[in-house]
């Protein structure tokens, strides 16, 4: 935990974000050139998969962090009893 407080956040270089932006744009543009699935609602809406991927991941991270507040312990939690019982 001390690491998190003492170290400055990692800053990603500008070129990283540039490449990311290009890839994301390409994947969005690609949508216009393919035949879409339409089994489920939303599948044939522009940007659905992008938004779904992004939002569910944010939700998973947020959910994990919240759960972590309750069930995370220092990593020597089980070491206290000497020979692991």
């Amino acid at each position: 935990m001390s690491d998190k407080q003492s170290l400055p956040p990692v800053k990603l270089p500008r070129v990283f974000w540039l490449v990311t932006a290009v890839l994301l744009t390409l994947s969005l543009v690609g949508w216009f050139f393919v035949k879409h699935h339409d089994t489920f609602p939303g599948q044939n809406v522009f940007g659905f998969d992008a938004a779904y991927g992004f939002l569910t991941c944010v939700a998973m991270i947020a959910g994990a962090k919240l759960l972590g507040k309750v069930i995370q312990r220092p990593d020597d939690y089980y070491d206290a009893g000497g020979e692991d019982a």
Partner: protein
Amino acid sequence: MPEALHLPPWLPLLIGALALPVLPDLLRRVVSVLAPAAALALVVFLPTGDIETLGIVLRIDALSRVFACAFALIGLAGAVFGLGRTKSFDVAGGLLNVGSALAAVTARDWLTLFIAWELLAVSSLIVLWSSDSPKAKGAGLRYFLLHAGGGAVLLVGLVLHGASGSWGEITTMPLDGPASWWVLAGVLINAGAPPLSAWVADAYPEASPSGTVFLSACTTKTAVYVLLRCFTGNDVLIWIGLWMVFYGIVYALLENDMRRILAYSIVNQVGFMVCGAGIGTELAIAGAAGHAFAHILYKGLLLMSAGAVLEVTGKRKCTELGGLWRAMPWTMTCGTIGALAISAFPLTSGFVTKSLVTSAAEKQQLAVPWFLLTAASAGVFLHAGIKFPWFVFFHRDRGLKATEAAWPARIAMGAVALGCILPGIWAAPLHARLPGAPTYHAYESGHLVAHLQLLLFAGLAFFVALPFLERTRTLTLDTDWLWRRLGPAVVDAFSGPWRLAGQGVDAVVGAGSKTLTSWLSPLTVSGMGRRLETGALWLGLLLLLQLVIGLMTRSA
């Protein structure tokens, strides 16, 4: 192949495992590689059908061959990877582990499968106890305790099943009575299903770098095989699988130890397979089997790259690792290939196998499972695909002194990396060998673009949320808390009066006999934990008893 060579694929591994500890150094290395190579040759060249050999009957069909191939391949890779470590028992244990898995998936009758099942637990224990990790002894004991229990549950089911007159051939088992539910429960324990998933992340990361490679392949995927053989099309498996998928993601996101991250993602990936078994259509079964094949290889690869890092740096926590790409470019490249494959990135094996499972959900119009599986696919990229390589090889350069992995390790990683890419580029040969030989075009443009959007924007989410994902020196409580903390505390509380009584008797009888207290102590859980040998003895007896019961019921 000539009929004289129709031997069980597990035989070379069994012989190899028994021979390794007594062979001189050079020969030991040769045998440790030759044994899985011979097993692989047998798996590939044995004819399809029921094969009688050495008094037993092997069942070789598409389903068993896919699993057996993957086991033999990773056995070979793991043996090459561990060439530097053959002095230890862990390669012998690892070969036995792979052999047990091969015996289980080529078994035609339940008894053979059950014996293989128990040997899986014993050989895993050997691998764990040969590890240098200080926590391996306790983790190994807990692993063994749980799996001896799981084996007992399976046995109860099989005995009940046998009573109804079909204790022979392994066939479909409708969930129509207590027997099949007991069997299913026993199988699910080995699959890492809830509520006992904790054993995976508790045990596997404590094995040696090569030992983990063997272990990660065998136990859970053998269980998946049995699900695909006997329990397909049961809706309950869809929901169990979905639970496992998200359990793996959430726990892996919170985890700091790189090999525990990968262990949680085993549960996550097996969740996809269990879900496929639950969907139960031909496409879903083929997908689950294919995904098991792909998974065994890329998970082995990921654990090899993590193992190489551990071997070189002696560190395993994300908070202590980072920036290793400069010192270990080969390990980084191979680890990243494994990470892309587990994320089902196009051009990797994961893409052409996992797509079968999600497509099966789509074809069956299973809306909720499909949406959840799709979200989980994004989550895999998050928790394993980016997180593992990012925190280990990039992120912060911690100035670790590191060199590239040893040559055997590099060769093993390179070969398996190839095995993760080739099916992704050319899927037809793999698809043709899956049960039902589905004709499936994973690279159909609509699916490809949708999947790329999903993954790339999941990646964006990772880097946007990076400050929140910074690792801390923590572990995450799981149901193993019940038997690691609560259980011993309760037993201690209740055994207090006993101990007092014992001390009282001792005081009366005199110091000459401290017997009562010392006899009672192994019976308490905490006492057993402190006395590992006593505990192991108890469990060994339990296991032996199971085997005897199994054999007796068979002859009855």
